[in-house]
């Protein structure tokens, strides 16, 4: 790998640029995108950096084409990514589904801003969390990660590439304007310390290869176009050879596998971080930038004698159902803080049993004040004391 692709050292950089550098460092050599605030810096960085490392940057006519282009590049054997925000994420939905159906590894960075529609181009939000999960039509499971800092933009973009190759699914990096534009120290390790994604190439010969026959973990191996394997890739429901089979039986078999390859491996995919949970009576659940606000609110609650703890979701999809179910039995109340009018909180409520769930919400525009989240923690603690 070219030395220029890994900028080993300490940098003071923003989250968008760190996403681009994460991709470059782990071998991404193709980016197709359409600039959009607040994700433009990812594309800008890629436009400048990819030619330096022998990669290709294409500015497409729109986000529909961008998403298609990175799927094509992936089948050509290249690690590929794109970045976008709000309206662009909506346009990408159809072809994210194509990526899911054709099991095409790739990474999509969504630097979230306030919506719906063009909404708040320059201001933050976390309103695309359910769109990330359900935005494309049909049944599927997806992987989405939520960075809380520029360092995590770097680290989780790499993680996204690893997961997308491991499970052959588009992986979404759900950043936001605040993290994207915030500058902090980013430590880029030496090249030999950076984990590299591995394309799961066929281990059988060309004659016995069946394109979509799954391995034990339900993920099939993937040749590149030009390797000499016979492949047919379609968005239509297909059989194990990849040929269209538009009938109920083939559909049942395929969709179950697409869903199960994530669900059955979810315990290997989850990444969580817990603090103050040892003695917590109120647990806060948050992700991305809001987790940093929640952490401050947790400290303030502790100063006031409320035993609060924080569960930070680093992987937001698949959702850590079992951990939340267990958590609900450990604490007396749950608080969910997020920059939307109530998205992940619904998921928490599905697994909270009889433990009351409170939410600290704001529809984007700016991050919550720690005091706002504290007020909800206090309300939760009071209710818990009564019950």
């Amino acid at each position, binding site marked *: 790998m070219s030395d220029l692709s890994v900028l080993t050292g*300490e*940098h*003071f950089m923003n989250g968008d640029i760190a996403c681009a550098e994460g991709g470059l460092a782990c071998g991404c050599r193709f980016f197709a995108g359409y600039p959009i605030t*607040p994700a433009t810096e990812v594309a800008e960085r890629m436009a400048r950096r990819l030619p330096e490392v022998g990669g290709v940057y294409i500015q497409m006519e729109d986000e529909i084409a961008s998403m298609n282009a990175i799927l094509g590049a992936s089948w050509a054997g290249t690690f590929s990514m794109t970045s976008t925000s709000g309206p662009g994420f909506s346009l990408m939905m159809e072809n994210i589904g194509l990526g899911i159906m054709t099991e095409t590894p790739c990474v999509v960075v969504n630097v979230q801003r306030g919506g719906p529609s063009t909404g708040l181009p*320059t*201001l933050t939000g976390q309103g695309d969390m359910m769109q990330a999960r359900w935005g494309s039509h049909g049944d599927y499971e997806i992987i989405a990660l939520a960075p809380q800092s520029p360092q995590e933009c770097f680290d989780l973009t790499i993680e996204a590439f690893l997961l997308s190759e491991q499970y052959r699914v588009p992986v979404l990096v759900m950043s936001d*304007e*605040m993290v994207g*534009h*915030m*500058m*902090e*120290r980013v430590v880029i390790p030496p090249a030999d310390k950076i984990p590299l994604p591995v394309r799961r190439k066929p281990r059988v010969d060309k004659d016995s290869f069946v394109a979509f026959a799954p391995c034990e973990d339900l993920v099939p191996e993937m040749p590149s176009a030009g390797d000499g394997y016979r492949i047919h890739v379609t968005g239509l429901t297909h059989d194990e050879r990849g040929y269209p089979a538009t009938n109920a039986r083939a559909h049942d078999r395929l969709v179950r596998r697409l869903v199960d390859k994530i669900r059955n491996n979810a315990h290997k995919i989850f990444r969580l971080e817990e*603090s*103050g949970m040892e003695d917590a009576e109120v647990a806060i659940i948050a992700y991305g*930038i809001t987790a*940093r*606000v929640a*952490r*401050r609110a*947790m*400290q303030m609650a*502790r*100063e006031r004698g409320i035993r609060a703890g924080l569960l930070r979701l680093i992987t937001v999809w698949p959702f850590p159902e079992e951990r939340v179910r267990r958590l609900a039995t450990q604490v007396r109340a749950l608080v969910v803080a997020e920059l939307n009018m109530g998205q992940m909180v619904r998921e928490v409520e599905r697994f909270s049993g009889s433990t009351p769930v409170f939410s600290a919400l704001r529809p984007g525009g700016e*991050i919550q*004040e*720690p005091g706002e989240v504290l007020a909800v923690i206090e309300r939760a603690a009071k209710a818990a004391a009564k019950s």
Partner: protein
Amino acid sequence: MAAAQLVQVAQELREIRIAGFGGQGVILAGFIIGKAASLYDGQEATMTQAYGPESRGGACSADVVMGKGEIGYPKVKSPHVLVAMSQEAYTLNAPHVRPDGLIIVDADLVKIERPPAARLVAVPATRLAEQLGKKVVANIILLGFFTAQTRLLSQEAMRKAIQSSVPSRFTSLNLRAFEVGYEHGLKA
């Protein structure tokens, strides 16, 4: 980290706001402080900036939260230090500065009618920059002044951050500007 430690860390963080007009190097000044702290001074730092169509050419500010511990909440709410490079920047931000905080103003750009609760110091940064031959280094003069007055960062860290942030042909001019500001800061 135990909860009690977290509380202490949060109390030791310092909030700094640089404010002025687009084009004065406000963002660069914030960037240099953040970079000096986090790359060359063993501290943590987070820089955010007012980002919007209204910030093009108009009022503009850069916020830095810095200190020895983890920075959770990244925004500046009540600054320990305000550097004001325009009247509007002063009027808008001075009321939010902590009473035990510090306000640094460009003496030629900000008129003070009523003294604020916080300590106020003025330096004729623009005039000094003109004497150096380039008005645009007023921001770096203010950074020198800031470094001497606040002692939040070492001179060495600031110099390194300036060197690695300005075009190389302007390095010596900027370092000279930093010196001039620093000298004035020691005397103020």
